[in-house]
């Protein structure tokens, strides 16, 4: 409740160029340092801004390039250790970072909680106390809906079912403990428990898998098309946008005069970064084109790097290959209908296209689906979970169950294994907003005929 580390996205979630994720609490520096590639944040001076990358330790991949402000207590807004992560705006990346923080020890801040802490820690004047309370009140009402909204009815049913499965296991163990002579409950042993836990884990994994899809379907994938001039970026864009399959909405960029467009291939919304740049680069000198590509690349989640089959790799190509290396990318060798001059042996994992036919689009679509594990998308009847807090909780529940499996393998007594299983049950309950209350006792006495 206090002194634990809280996190929230403190900029409006949307299309700003930069998003700020703020943490406050004793462990905030340690949590971020574990997820940060760059300087060791534990050792940096207070009130410094540090360049680096946020990594996803589970996949060992880079999530985003960031600036991290480290501010140690007490001279911070909350008078606690505060870390602010400046990342590239965009819902996908920001939420991803939030989710990683939530699975690594931070808790999602309650409404008004930063301000509340500031007050409780003496940073805010007494006269402001009332307004802090109003803030909590207002935001609570607002978030009551938000909390539930994020959860699709089908998902909540899925999680409810999962939770019941876990509860049954827990209740059985509890009966064994509290009524050791009662003969009608399954005598739970680690051998019986193990497959049951695995089953639940695999169900959680499935929901998480869907979650990825759900997120992508809701928020789209930010795509950058990069490459030297004249390799076929424009044609690629055009073919992607051509005919009925492409729906383009054009919004005028405000500061940088960039036009962005959404296109939709195979049900996946793609948001093309810097479409204007792609078109313009035909006419401008190569250096500027590359520079522009770098910028687009920074913002994108997926990079389509276009190369020319008909030419040898140039320094610029190699440069682009290098800078896009850490990104999720698709290498497209275009103009495959012309003579091959490119050194394919230097490249891995590419697709070949000719921008003359629709088949190329199918190849790209398939590749994207492979990368994001989207398979056949049936938007209508699939249940998705998309809220970062929910995803983080699911992952935490999964981790507790994995801990339980580990304990089982170490032959730890079942009542200790149960500690982790119970944790998973409570974490799942938090997703649904259900309190622990008397649920376990009710289960015990409704499922088992106990007592003398």
């Amino acid at each position, binding site marked *: *409740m206090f002194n634990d580390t809280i996190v929230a996205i403190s900029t409006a979630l949307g299309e700003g160029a930069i998003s700020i994720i703020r943490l406050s609490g004793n462990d905030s520096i340690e949590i971020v340092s574990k997820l940060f590639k760059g300087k060791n944040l534990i050792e940096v001076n207070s009130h410094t801004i540090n360049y680096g990358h946020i990594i996803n330790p589970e996949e060992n991949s880079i999530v985003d390039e960031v600036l991290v402000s480290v501010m140690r207590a007490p001279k911070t807004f909350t008078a606690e250790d505060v870390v602010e992560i400046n990342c590239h705006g965009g819902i996908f990346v920001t939420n991803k970072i939030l989710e990683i923080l939530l699975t690594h020890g931070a808790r999602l801040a309650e409404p008004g909680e930063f301000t509340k802490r500031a007050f409780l820690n003496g940073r805010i004047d007494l006269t402001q106390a009332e307004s802090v309370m109003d803030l909590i009140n207002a935001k*609570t009402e607002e978030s009551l809906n938000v909390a539930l909204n994020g959860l699709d009815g089908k998902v909540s049913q899925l999680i409810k079912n999962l939770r019941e499965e876990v509860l049954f296991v827990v209740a059985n163990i509890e009966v064994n403990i509290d009524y050791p002579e009662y003969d009608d409950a399954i005598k739970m042993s680690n051998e019986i428990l193990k497959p049951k836990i695995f089953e639940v884990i695999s169900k959680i994994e499935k929901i998480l898998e869907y979650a990825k899809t759900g997120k992508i379907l809701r928020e789209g994938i930010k795509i950058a098309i990069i490459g030297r001039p004249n390799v076929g970026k424009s044609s690629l864009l055009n073919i992607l946008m051509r005919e009925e399959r492409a729906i383009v909405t054009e919004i005028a960029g405000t500061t940088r005069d960039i036009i962005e467009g959404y296109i939709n291939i195979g049900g996946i919304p793609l948001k093309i970064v810097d479409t204007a740049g792609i078109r313009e680069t035909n006419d401008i000198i190569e250096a500027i084109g590359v520079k522009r590509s770098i910028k687009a690349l920074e913002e994108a989640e997926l990079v389509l790097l276009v190369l020319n089959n008909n030419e040898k790799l140039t320094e610029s190509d190699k440069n682009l290959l290098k800078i896009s290396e850490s990104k999720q990318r698709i290498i497209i060798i275009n103009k495959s209908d012309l003579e091959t001059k490119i050194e394919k042996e230097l490249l891995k994992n590419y697709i070949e296209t000719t921008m003359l036919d629709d088949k190329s689009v199918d190849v790209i679509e398939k590749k994207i689906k492979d990368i994001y594990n989207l398979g056949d998308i049936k938007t209508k009847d699939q249940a998705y979970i998309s809220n970062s807090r929910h995803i983080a909780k699911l992952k935490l529940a999964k981790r507790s169950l994995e801990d339980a499996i580990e304990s089982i393998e170490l032959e730890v007594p079942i009542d200790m294994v149960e500690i982790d299983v119970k944790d998973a049950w409570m974490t799942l309950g938090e997703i649904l907003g259900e309190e622990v209350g008397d649920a376990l006792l009710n289960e015990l006495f409704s499922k088992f005929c106990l007592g003398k």
Partner: protein
Amino acid sequence: MYDIIVIGGGHAGCEASLAPARMGLKTLLITSKISRIGHMPCNPSIGGPAKGIVVRELDALGGEMGRNTDKSHIQMRMLNTGKGPAVRALRAQADKVDYPKNMQETLLNQENLTVIEDMVDDLIVEDHQIKGVILENKERIESKAVILTAGTYMKSRVMISSETRISGPDNERPSLGLSDNLRRLGFITLRLKTGTPPRVAIETVDFSKTEPQPGDMECFAFSYDTTEYKPLENQVPCYLTYTNAETHKIIMDNLSKSSMYGAIEKIESRGPRYCPSIEDKIVRFSDKPRHQIFLEPESLHIPEIYVQGLSTSLPRDIQEKIIHTIPGLENCKIVRYAYAIEYDAIEPTQLWPTLESKLVFGLYFAGQVNGTSGYEEAAGQGIMAGINAALKIQKKEPLILHRDEAYIGVMIDDLVTKGTKEPYRLLTSRAEYRLFLRHDNADIRLREYGYKIGLIDEERYKKFNNKVNNIETEKQRLSQVKINPSKSTNEYLDSIESSQLKDGITALNLLKRPEITYHHIIRLLHEEVKLSKEEIEQIEIQVKYEGYLRKTTSQVEKMLKLEEKLIPLDIDYNKILNLAIEAKQKLTLIRPLTIGQAQRISGVNPPDISILLIYLESFYRRRKGVEIDERESACEFIPE
């Protein structure tokens, strides 16, 4: 004039009167019958999961139940030995004759304690302060504090089928006036119900048709001070048998004759789910082909068997029919019939966590009268009420056990924070920090408190300190001694099916392996075992489960932070505008002492807690200069 008067000589009353007397306060116990002190109206079993640990906790604090059970049992078993150390629990079959007799002897010989036979009819209360009690004959006895442990005796009504009778358990006299007078004082009461099964004559039971359930062939004791054990070979077994389809048919055919199923109109009371009658079991679990029936000998001195599992309020003739369908009991003779009993209890949220009532200063409640069931639960409350009444008179800080310290703490916190709708029974699942609340470490958790308040004498305390020192010293030593992968070491490890060492390892780390015991380590070090069994057990548990204990520690630390945030007693929740209405009502009713307690009240939600915290911060800042010693504020209970 007495310091403390205890009303009732059941398991709560015994502990509630012994504790203050031992702390040097002039104490009076008023009981309806001295020969009934420490009596066991239900089955003579003490301990079991959670409850057994309560007995250990009582003993660690300086209570009597553990020692008395060690003196008075006919069988002991350690339960859950196949599971982890946190859930191991000792259970004894007490001797129904010896247990009360030994307890009476202890009470009657206790310095500072006077025991009289009488009935209390009313309380003397002046200006919200208890002044003493009024006996049946209108005689007044004055005291500074009163502890009410009336058990199931207030307005109790015994029921067999349609027949009801105003009576206490076992035909004892009930207390008729007391609960009316409590209501007059403003207390809210509950109507609760429980029951007991028939007893049968031992010589009429054919035990050959049942499965014997013998005691363990190892010496166990509840008390840390017990050094003499009863001979193991004198233990008496219990027996297991089952109901069957015929039993169930008779019950279903006669259901309407059960007091609880329509034979009596207007049953207002609630029975415990933990203690269902046989008719409840058969109605609610109709798919179960049979139910377990345990035959428990009640005493070596009386030839009676307690038929556990057959609580009922069916008429006597049906009880006969039912029992004769059960293997081993076909020809048995019922010596006492089963009955249900309903009684008045008080709503326990009217108490502070010290068990002092919020309505009347110096009036404490403990035991079944607070809506619990079970001897151990009663005794656990009894000792805490006794201790706190004494501490208050001594003008010392109260002793409130936290949820991470004792099952007793869990129970009292549950009662005063959440209240209860049915007789409350302790279960291990009620404890969040079960791993801490173990059978083995009750002394480590609580003996220090017992010593501080004066219930544990120097000698016992010294013994305890030696144990703690030995454990710490040995752990320290093991963390420094290295075991190297020598040929003989690895051969020995092979022989006990543990993997060989490749590098040197500290003895402590080797002990972390599940299959390695302390004795293995000592063997590897070519040493002699110098520590006691209990000390070795502690070391093994602390070392092997270190990771889990650490996890629990971090959860506990979070909880304790909230317990440290105290709420002043004169807070007016209605003045906190932003609180939800339900939260206002609940908080006003329960008046939690800490934010931690507030948070556990159902209906008080996280935003309410946030608002409360901010209000308190403003409140304290406004009162700047008036430093509130938070512990003390919990002491000065301000009556309404």
